[in-house]
């Protein structure tokens, strides 16, 4: 499997890029080239130099440092949103599959269809209207939108596993339901869930960027790539660099986790290998 992974181009590119982004985000916890919040009015909108690698923004802050801290916020968003979606989605999906044919299955799936009708931006707006804007509330909204996605994948995969012979064998041997679930079902659907997690991670980064662009996500002075893009629009003609860099950071991160997911899917299940 490792040999196959090393020969898979999209997995390799995705893995290297994601590792790079994670390293940058982790590094920002201990070190950034400059203080990302320090303003230097005389140095505003300066191009790249030895002192400021990627130049400065409209307040004279170091763009490279802001981007690094932005990476941390983007990854944190993805992580928490996926954790919420995966946690609840996996539970509900497996439960629905176990109860297939009964009203509980129907009720869970209908409720999830309902949640799915609220795009992340809309549920975020609803939540933010009475909780106030902020990164935490935005992440919760994105996480809620993830639940039905994970639940559908988990339900489908669990149904397939439950129909296999070794499950019947375990049932005949009077293995308790929960043990069957833990020992036989979960390991068999883990691959699919990991692949989905990778895709949803990428989507969460996109959603957070969108919300922050609208001013509904990360609040200043906490840096966010989406927010940087909004600020940059005012100075688009003067310094397009400010609009290019954060966008590039978003696109690269999303690309990285999408490639990683595609690669993992092929590696974990060779039958699905793209023709």
């Amino acid at each position, binding site marked *: 499997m490792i040999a196959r992974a090393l020969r898979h181009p*999209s997995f390799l590119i995705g893995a290297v890029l994601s590792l790079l982004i994670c390293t940058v985000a982790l590094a920002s916890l201990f070190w950034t080239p400059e203080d990302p919040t320090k303003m230097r009015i005389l140095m505003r909108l300066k191009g790249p130099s030895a002192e400021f690698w990627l130049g400065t923004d409209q307040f004279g802050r170091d763009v490279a440092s802001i981007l690094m801290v932005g990476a941390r916020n983007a990854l944190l968003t993805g992580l928490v949103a996926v954790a919420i979606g995966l946690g609840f989605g996996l539970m509900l999906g497996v439960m629905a599959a176990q109860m297939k044919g009964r009203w509980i299955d129907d009720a869970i799936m*209908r409720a999830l*269809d*309902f949640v*799915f*009708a*609220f*795009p*992340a*931006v*809309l549920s975020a*707006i*609803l*939540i*933010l*209207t*009475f909780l106030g804007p902020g990164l935490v509330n935005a992440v919760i909204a994105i996480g809620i939108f993830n639940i039905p996605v994970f639940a559908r994948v988990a339900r489908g995969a669990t149904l397939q596993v439950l129909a296999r012979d070794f499950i019947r064998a375990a049932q005949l041997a009077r293995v308790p339901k929960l043990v069957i679930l833990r020992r036989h079902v979960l390991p068999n659907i883990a691959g699919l869930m990991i692949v989905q997690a990778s895709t949803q991670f*990428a989507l969460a980064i*996109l959603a957070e*960027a*969108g919300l922050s*662009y*609208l*001013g*509904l996500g990360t609040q200043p002075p906490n840096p966010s790539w989406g927010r940087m*893009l909004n600020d*940059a*629009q005012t100075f*688009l*003609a003067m310094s*397009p660099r400010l*609009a*290019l860099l954060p*966008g590039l950071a*978003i*696109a*690269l991160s*999303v*690309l990285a986790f*999408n*490639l990683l997911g595609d690669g993992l899917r092929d590696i974990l299940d060779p039958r699905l290998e793209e*023709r």
Partner: protein
Amino acid sequence: MGHFILRRLAGFVLTMLAAAILIFLLLEVLPGDPAGTMLGVSATPETVAALRAELGLDRPAFQRFLSWILGLFTGDLGLSYTYRVPVGGLIAERIAVTLPLATMALVLAATIGITLGTLAASRGSGPVDAAIMAVSQLGIAIPNFWFGILFVLLFSVTLGWFPSGGFPGWQADPAGAFRALVLPAFALALPQSAVLARMTRTSMLETLGEDFIRTARAKGLNRAQVLRRHALRNALIPVITVLGLQFSFLVAGTIVVENVFALPGLGRLLVQAVGGHDLILIKSLVLLFVGTVIAVNTAVDLAYGLIDPRLRIAA
């Protein structure tokens, strides 16, 4: 068949009702005092009481909910708190921007996506296929609002071909209004078309492996004829479903992209309403957005059932 349609429509009505109840609870019941929320912390008790009376918030919640739902049918949705004009009128005025924008984006996304996907699948695995797949992978990764900003940079700031934002209005300047929607529509459409291209390619490859394709070739049709008459039709069924599901991303996308281009549409109105704590306006706008998504999903379900009878039983 009639049973299937009835079930779906009943589901639609119930889902809409549930959405309305949820929105009403979140915006008008849970915050406690909507009038206080709208006026902010600096308001005096007198002004809060006055607004409460003006908005009829002193009536029981159930009564308010009923009059809101009735208002959805009569168009009387109350006065917007920030704009001081009827919500129904505001929505009618802004929909003239958002609906054409979303339609343009949908048509563009479908055209670009299905064309590229078919092209990639029909050429087999080669440089064309690889190039289209690589480009689509990039297209998925780029957020629509960054596409928007990049377009402004290239086509407005540098080349000056299109306006960078704003909207002259359909009556005042029809050609200018159309031009104002071109860049936003492309920005919305490109990420969607990338998803559709990949979907079409996969579905097309599956269909091209079917027996009836070999039969069609065997009876003497050339490649292009087989592709057009037999493969595309069958391959498009799952693509249409995905198109329906993608619609919710498109709706969410208009909210962000309208703000990039300062278009006076529903999405920008919603963000402004959130900024002004205009709960009266937010309530109806969110229901409109969510209702559109639910309606499109129901329509896709229905269309799917009409095309493929097997799905009626499963439903």
